[in-house]
């Protein structure tokens, strides 16, 4: 076996450029890796920002826009908004971050830090360094941690907006999962507006387990909703609930129309994007439908 065969065997076996897997029967015996602190301050220095802008605009965005067919709507909601804000998006794929960063207006994209799971993206130095450089990530402890809260505060103090995924991790079936409370508390504590973003189709384009978008330029949709500000005296839990409703409305707007979503919201019939109460395969089946395959006809052409 020559050197090329050896390298090919190792690259396949350990899934280079992808996360290597642990055999199922070995998982109970794998201790939780010790959490390590990766400094990410360097990723926000002027030099790193220049590199990131080049990487994002010259590499990641063209790649994402070539491999998928994104449709971006609702950016006008950001007009007149002053940072910092918290961008809150649903999360179903590793494509979500490139799609959102690529769709944000430049002024915003250059000033956004992305919350990334500390136990996933910061468990190996090379992964931490590369994601911090490319996406300006900072570690978020999914189980709560004082150190991370402190870092968030520091970022906001420096004027960075944040991109966070309130579900905590990628959806296993493409539908919206429950929200964790951290984002709501953060907005309430700092009086920050949250901008809901609905990303649809990314699950079908590159679900969990895939390291590259599936061929065929899958249609994806990124829709920004109107910013939501905490009200005086509002609790974190209440704000989280409002944010979820807002995101549901944006999702519904993307799936139907702005008018339909407004009416459904007013009538209290806004369907939660949690998928059909059916076996997993059917949920996955529904979630992988291209978002534009069944685009509704304009409101003025429909009969009621």
């Amino acid at each position, binding site marked *: 076996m020559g*050197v090329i065969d050896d390298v090919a065997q*190792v690259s396949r*076996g*350990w899934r280079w450029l992808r996360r290597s897997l642990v055999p199922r029967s*070995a998982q109970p015996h*794998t*201790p939780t890796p010790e959490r390590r602190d990766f400094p990410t301050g360097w990723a926000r220095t002027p030099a790193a920002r220049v590199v990131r802008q080049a990487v994002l605009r010259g590499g990641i965005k063209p790649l994402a826009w070539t491999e998928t067919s994104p449709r971006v709507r609702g950016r006008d909601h950001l007009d007149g908004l002053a940072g910092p804000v918290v961008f809150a998006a649903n999360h179903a794929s590793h494509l979500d971050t490139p799609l959102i960063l690529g769709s944000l207006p430049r002024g915003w994209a250059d000033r956004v830090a992305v919350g990334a799971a500390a136990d996933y993206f910061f468990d*190996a130095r090379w992964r931490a360094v590369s994601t911090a450089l490319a996406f300006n990530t900072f570690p978020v402890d999914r189980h709560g941690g004082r150190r991370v809260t402190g870092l968030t505060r520091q970022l906001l103090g420096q004027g960075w907006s944040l991109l966070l995924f309130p579900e905590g991790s990628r959806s296993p079936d493409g539908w919206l999962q429950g929200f964790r409370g951290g984002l709501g508390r953060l907005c309430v504590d700092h009086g920050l507006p949250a901008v809901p973003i609905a990303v649809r189709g990314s699950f079908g384009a590159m679900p969990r387990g895939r390291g590259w978008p599936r061929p065929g330029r899958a249609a994806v949709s990124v829709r920004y909703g109107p910013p939501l500000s905490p009200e005086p005296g509002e609790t974190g839990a209440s704000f989280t609930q409002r944010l979820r409703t807002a995101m549901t409305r944006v999702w519904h707007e993307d799936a139907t129309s702005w008018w339909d979503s407004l009416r459904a919201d007013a009538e209290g019939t806004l369907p939660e994007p949690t998928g059909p109460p059916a076996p997993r395969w059917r949920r996955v089946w529904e979630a992988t439908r291209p978002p534009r395959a069944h685009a509704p006809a304009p409101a003025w052409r429909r009969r009621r």
Partner: protein
Amino acid sequence: MSRPGMVLEVDERTPPLLVHAGESVHLQQFPLGTRVVYPPDSLPGVGDVDAAIHTALESPHDSPPLRELLWPGMRLTIAFDDISVPLPPMRPPDVRQRVIEAVLEQAAAIGVDDVELISAIALHRRMTPEEMKAVVGERVFRSFWPERLRNHDAEDPNGLAYLGQTDHGEAVEINRRAAESDLLVYVNVTYVAMNGGHKSVPVGLASYRSLQPHHNVGVVRHSAFNDPPQSAMHHSYQRMGAVVADHVRVFTVETTVNNDPFPEQLGFLNKREWEWGVGDQARYLALRRANALAPTAVRHKVWQATRAPYQITGVNAGATDPVHERTLATLYRQQLTEVDGQSDVLIFGLPYLCPYNVDSIMNPILVMCLGLGYFFNMYRNRPLVRQGGALIMFHPVPWEFHQVHHPSYVDFFEEVLAETTDPAQIESKFEAQYATDPWYVHLYRNSHAYHGVHPFYMWYWGAKALSHLSEVIVVGGDRRSCARMGFRSASTFNDALEMAADSVGHSPSLTYLHNPPLSMGEVR
């Protein structure tokens, strides 16, 4: 706390697994569902080894402290295991050196003048001065070599003492100096469960006559080497130990090491594959390249120069039985993994080293002994493979011998195995001739050759496996060497599975014993 051993079931997420094959390693993809037995992670060492030795000597089990057994004018003999353990040899200082120095410190303080040190080689080759120095340390070597530090000589008619026989009629004859001492201190490294205990003195210091009662095909076939209660061989050792104890006071010091046989730069060899980081993968690739590019002689030299960073996991001293009981408990904690039932096929890769080719060549007979004698017997309760199952081993089995160390092996391979591979026939027809051949005796006593009968013992070591298995297949093995030993050679692992289908069908259950680091199955 170290993680316990585990049995992995190969699934689609499992990376290819490391397999040793002589002076090489490679990654092998195993079929889905293959069980892989991993040993527990390395146990932590005792920390301060000298303090542990001091405590063991001061608070021995079922024995007064060592200092109370010493007096001026006494005859003190210290016997110790030779370089066949541990594998690879330890990084200096060897634990035997530390124990021997501690014993000698006490003896010197009390005024013991008549001290001799004997390496308990039985019928192994004599250790060279350099090897001896590596085991006992420079200080001891300079003080005692060569008059009072020597190799045991199992063929010295004046150097042996017949102590009598056991109630089973087994002759007990051991080194005269040891037998006639006021105190015999035995310093041991128990590397596998078959060693230590009463194997140390009645075997390590024995003559050929005294080895015959247990080193024979009948006894081996009724022995589970690493499960002493189920081993006829160990029962024999036990009986002989009782005879020895009637003649000489034995103070046993047993030590155990953890499961770190490879140095840091080869640390990935000690790891479970899915835990390999980028550095481990790079080191693996580098090792593969270096191995492939290095000339054979250089590769051999580099592998043989490997020294293990073992840590000491236990030091126990005192009467042989209670000491050995504790030693085995530590050893099992390090090596034993529970396995649910037997399988149709047992698989293992054979590394470059076995107890009898340290600084030497692993000839085909030693390959057989390591596979069928040692690795096959890495179980407790019952074998990892069912009766009538198949064994698949990885090794190149080159047809090569060390002319100085293994002269009788050459003849055994050329003459004896050419006629038959049946251990019982070999024993009855050829053993006496080789055991008493004056040239082999001469080489054993004066050169650095294994005794003339030693290749027979190696062959007997596999006797149980030979009668248990229906098929032995060696992946990558030299066809002529394998055929001479009655094995089949396969070019690839898939070919081997195909060949094994003749005896175990097309969907056999597979168990891969991931070894080294040493791994042993407790088969339920």
